Each structure stands twice: as structure tokens, then as C-alpha cells.
């Protein structure tokens, strides 16, 4: 059955000898420590991992093929399922790519609401990552503390778009809906509570002897290796490289807010934890500023060949009716071309490469998932450490199978 296994941690791809002195063990694809459908074959010497093979694809659902058979706006619900811990960021990443292809800029109000959506998503994504990571290590309390805040943010999402997890909140050229009444005040209340929870967990973990023993120096990766593997996001910043697309190539006015890129040294589980904790506080800073002065005006672009016309226009004018009909029946028609657009998602650079043939559906949608590159480097971090350290490392990488396998 050797040929059925699709990857190992060795660079030469060699298959270990059958009479290996090590014990072999299968982990996953459904295992509490993998938080998703990841399968790992390991070779153990006592408690130490000597070799490992990663097998992915258990959650492959042909996102890219589906993208080719659906209209531009119909792809948005598929993007929800990429990184389902922060669905709104995927929505934004995808529509931003289509908007780049169209050569349009969304309205200031829409940009600001997208920033708010993205930063709230980043916070809940990091909450899940640290929460689940701490559960794996045995600190259950933090998980409950964090999930309370996550539920509050999900309530906000629900009010915004009707869904909690699979939001599909964006549309090409705008949003599904403008903010409901009173939402901003509510959001301000919700984010005011989050620092207290962060402080609580900070107090429970950051200087905790057990937590430090289980995470500091565990699953380390060097700067050079991280770059060579194509790491982005918190996992890269944990090695000390201050790279963040929101600073490097700001979009949606990220450069107008006062905030810092959080980095840490060592590239180990502990530094990834510190980076995520710091990033949540920075996201809160951005949110506080972003919620303060949301620009007035429409959320959708005025071009009726991209955004649906307002309902009054559809029912009372022939132009509105025709535009509505044409958009629903034929869809958006971006010009022929190929573009790549990237956003800083919770796990790193989420990129979309799109080719349009000038038709109502994409010719090709290519998603560059940050997890794919990061998970490839996992054996580099986990080998020659204990199984429990591998669990702690895997949790800190925040591998989301929906994004990994697409």
C-alpha cells in the first residue's frame, strides 16, 4: 500500500524501509488534534517523531472548477467555505479581485464596512486558533472565554447579513446590504468587551509556566525557511519578519488608521501565540478608528451593469427594469484579462487569480490559500520533537482544511 500515500516529510520523497525500527502510527483524517480533515502518518521512536507524511485533500470540493461554472456573484458563497473561521475575509478577497478586473473602486462607505468586517473576522479567527490550540495543550478555560466573544461577534454578523458562519456578505461592486440601524453602537459595545477577555487570557497563559513549557521553542522555523516555504501572515511574522499586506500595499484605506504590525522572534508556537494576541489588539485599534467616522453614501457602485439598481428604479423606470433584467440574466461582463489580487487574511496572503473571457462567468478562478504553503512546512517544524509538541505546533499554524483543500 506504500504507493497510496501521497507525501512524506523527506525532501527526497523516499519511502522508509519496511523493517524500520520505528513504530508507525496513523493520525486522522478525523482526529481531535487536527481540527479538520488532515491525515498524518508518523514514525515514532518512543515519543519522538522521526518521519512523517502528510496527506491532504479530504475536504477537496473543486472550488476552482465550481468557479468556472457559476456566475461572478455566485462564486461568493463558495468562498465562504475556504477559511470558514473568517468567511467575510474570503468574500472580500474574492470581490476585490473581480473589482480589480473590472477596474472599479467601491464607494468609501463600502470600503469602510469591508474593513470593519475584515477586522472583526480576523479577531474571531485568531480567537478560534488560540482557543483551540490551548484546548489541545490542556487549557480549556481560555477556549470558553474566547468563544463567548466570538459568539458576540457572530451576533453582529447575523444582524449584518443574516448568517453567522457562511456569510456571503459582499457583492461585486458593493455589499449585500448596508449596515442595519444601531449596528455601529452595538459593534462598539461588543469590541469594548474584547480587551478584558484578552487580558484574562493573557493573565492565564502568557506568563504561565506550563504554557511556556509547552510552547516556547516548540515547532520552530527560521526566517529563511519560512520564506522559502512561502509562509505569510502570523506564522511569518512570528519569525520576526514584519510583513503585512495591509501595510505593504494598503487597500481600503488601511494606511489611514494608526496601528502596528506585530512581530515576534523565534518562529515557535509561543511566538505565533504572541503575534496573534497582539494582532487582535491591533485589530481592535483599527476597529475603534474605523467605527468612529463611517462615510455616508451608498454602499454599491452606481454602475447598473455591475450592481443591481435600487428597487424603486426597477419598478418605476424602464431603464432600471432593463438593467435589473440584464444583470440577473446575463451577469457582470468584466473585460478579457488576467489579474491577481491579494488581501491579508487571518492566515496570510489570500490571493485570487482570475481570468475573464468577457463572459458572465469566470474562465478560471485560482485561489492561493495561505494554509497550503504553511502546512507544507509542518514536517520541518514537527520532526524530532514529541507527538504532543507536534499537536501544539499544528494548532498554532491554524490549518483550516476548507482553505487547504479547497
Amino acid at each position, binding site marked *: 500500500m506504500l504507493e497510496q*500515500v*501521497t507525501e512524506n516529510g523527506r525532501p527526497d520523497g523516499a519511502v522508509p524501509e519496511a523493517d524500520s525500527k520505528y513504530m508507525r502510527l*496513523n493520525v486522522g483524517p478525523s482526529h481531535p488534534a487536527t481540527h479538520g480533515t488532515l491525515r498524518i502518518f508518523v514514525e515514532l521512536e518512543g515519543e519522538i517523531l522521526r518521519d512523517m507524511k502528510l496527506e491532504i485533500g479530504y475536504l477537496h470540493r*473543486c472550488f476552482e472548477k465550481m468557479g468556472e461554472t457559476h456566475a461572478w456573484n455566485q462564486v461568493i458563497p463558495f468562498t465562504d467555505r475556504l477559511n470558514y473561521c473568517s468567511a467575510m475575509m474570503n468574500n472580500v478577497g474574492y470581490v476585490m479581485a473581480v473589482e480589480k478586473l473590472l477596474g472599479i473602486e467601491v464607494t468609501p462607505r463600502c470600503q469602510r464596512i469591508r474593513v470593519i468586517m475584515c477586522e472583526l473576522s480576523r479577531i474571531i479567527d485568531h480567537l478560534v486558533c488560540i482557543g483551540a490550540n490551548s484546548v489541545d495543550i490542556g487549557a480549556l478555560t481560555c477556549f470558553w472565554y474566547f468563544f463567548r466573544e466570538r459568539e458576540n461577534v457572530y451576533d453582529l454578523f447575523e444582524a449584518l447579513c443574516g448568517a453567522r458562519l457562511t456569510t456571503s456578505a459582499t457583492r461585486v461592486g458593493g455589499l449585500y446590504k448596508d449596515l442595519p440601524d444601531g449596528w455601529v453602537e452595538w459593534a462598539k459595545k461588543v469590541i469594548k468587551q474584547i480587551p478584558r477577555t484578552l487580558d484574562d487570557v493573557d493573565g492565564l497563559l502568557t506568563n504561565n509556566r506550563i504554557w511556556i513549557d509547552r510552547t516556547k521553542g516548540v515547532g520552530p522555523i527560521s526566517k529563511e525557511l519560512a520564506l522559502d516555504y*512561502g509562509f505569510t501572515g502570523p506564522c511569518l511574522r512570528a519569525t520576526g519578519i514584519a510583513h503585512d499586506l495591509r501595510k505593504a500595499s494598503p487597500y481600503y484605506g488601511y494606511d489611514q488608521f494608526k496601528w502596528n504590525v506585530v512581530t515576534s522572534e523565534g518562529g515557535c508556537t509561543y511566538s505565533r501565540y504572541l503575534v496573534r494576541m497582539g494582532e487582535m489588539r491591533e485589530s481592535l485599534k483599527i476597529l475603534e478608528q474605523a467605527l468612529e467616522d463611517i462615510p455616508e453614501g451608498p454602499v454599491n457602485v452606481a454602475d447598473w451593469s455591475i450592481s443591481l439598481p435600487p428597487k424603486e428604479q426597477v419598478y418605476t423606470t424602464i431603464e432600471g427594469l432593463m438593467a435589473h433584467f440584464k444583470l440577473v440574466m446575463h451577469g457582470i461582463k468584466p473585460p478579457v484579462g*488576467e489579474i491577481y489580487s491579494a488581501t491579508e487574511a487571518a492566515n496570510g496572503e489570500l490571493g485570487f487569480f482570475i481570468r475573464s473571457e468577457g463572459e458572465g462567468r469566470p474562465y478560471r478562478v485560482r485561489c492561493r490559500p495561505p494554509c497550503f*504553503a504553511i502546512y507544507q512546512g509542518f514536517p520541518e517544524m514537527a520532526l524530532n520533537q514529541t507527538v504532543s509538541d507536534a499537536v501544539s505546533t499544528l494548532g498554532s499554524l491554524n490549518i483550516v482544511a476548507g482553505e487547504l483543500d479547497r
Partner: protein
Amino acid sequence: MQETGTSSSVSNSGMLPEFASAFASEILATEDFRGDVTYVIKPQRIREMIRFLKTLERCPFNVMMDLFAMDYLKSNTEMPERFAVIYNLYSLPSNARVRLKAYVPEAKPEIESIHDVYKAANWFEREAWDLFGITFTGHPHLQRILCHNEFVGHPLRKDYPSDQYQRLKTSIRSTGM
């Protein structure tokens, strides 16, 4: 060759003059669409070119962001070949991006592997092989990565029906390694 947007000839390519002059005979076209620079290149010397860009002094393209394939079978535009492999490189020090695009023929969809230039390329090349059937010569472990091992064909090719399912008949035993 030049499909879209404003394209410029090799002689006045804007972004990477060192690259354009070093590989003048290899570069077939330069495209610039919405600010994305793409060099259309011959596939033969891909490893050299990638290595050149990775070690370029002025702006080293030290991150391989993406590597994937395209199938132009159903394209309305006439393309030189059916398949293309696209390399998406990023330079962290100078925050620059460049795309290389190498067309490979349908009869022999083959290109050299760059897994030893960027470690990241390993899985991305496997994915391109799995979904498009592009062979990366010299790849140490060119096996399916997203589809199961009994899968027949390459699902992202344009002639693969989007509603065709293939069920895995036998379970993968956990005999390990």
C-alpha cells in the same frame, strides 16, 4: 501572443530590465494589465530564470507566492499552446510582484520542476499535475495531492465535465508510510 490590456515589446519592458536583457531570447512578450506585469517565456530555461529572479540583487523575488496551471482549450482568444504554467513571485524587500507564464504544448505538457529553487514549489507542482496533468520533470514525488489516488483524468482541464464524479472504491489502509 499578447492578449489583453496594454502590452509592450521586450525592448522597453518596464519593470525588470536586468531580467529582460539577461533572457532576451527567452521572453516572448511582456504584458501589463491593471498593473500586473507578466512575462511570457519559453519553458525550456525556466529553472535558470526563476533562480535569476530569486537572487536578483536589486529586488530578490524571495517568496514563491503561487504556481498553477491554465487550460486555454475553451478560450476565445487564440493562444500559442493549450496549457500554461504560471509562476507568481513576490519580492519582500521591494514589495514587487512578477508573473512568469510559460506555455506548454498539449502533446507534451512538460516543464522542469523548481522544487529545489523554492521549497514551496513542491506541493504547488503536485497540485498542477493533479488538476491539469502538467508533468514537472525532476520533481521527487509527483503524485496526486487533492484528488484521491484512484482518480482518472485531470479535473480542472476544460474537457473534464464539471458534473462527473469519481468515487474512491477502496479505502486507503493505514499501513503507514
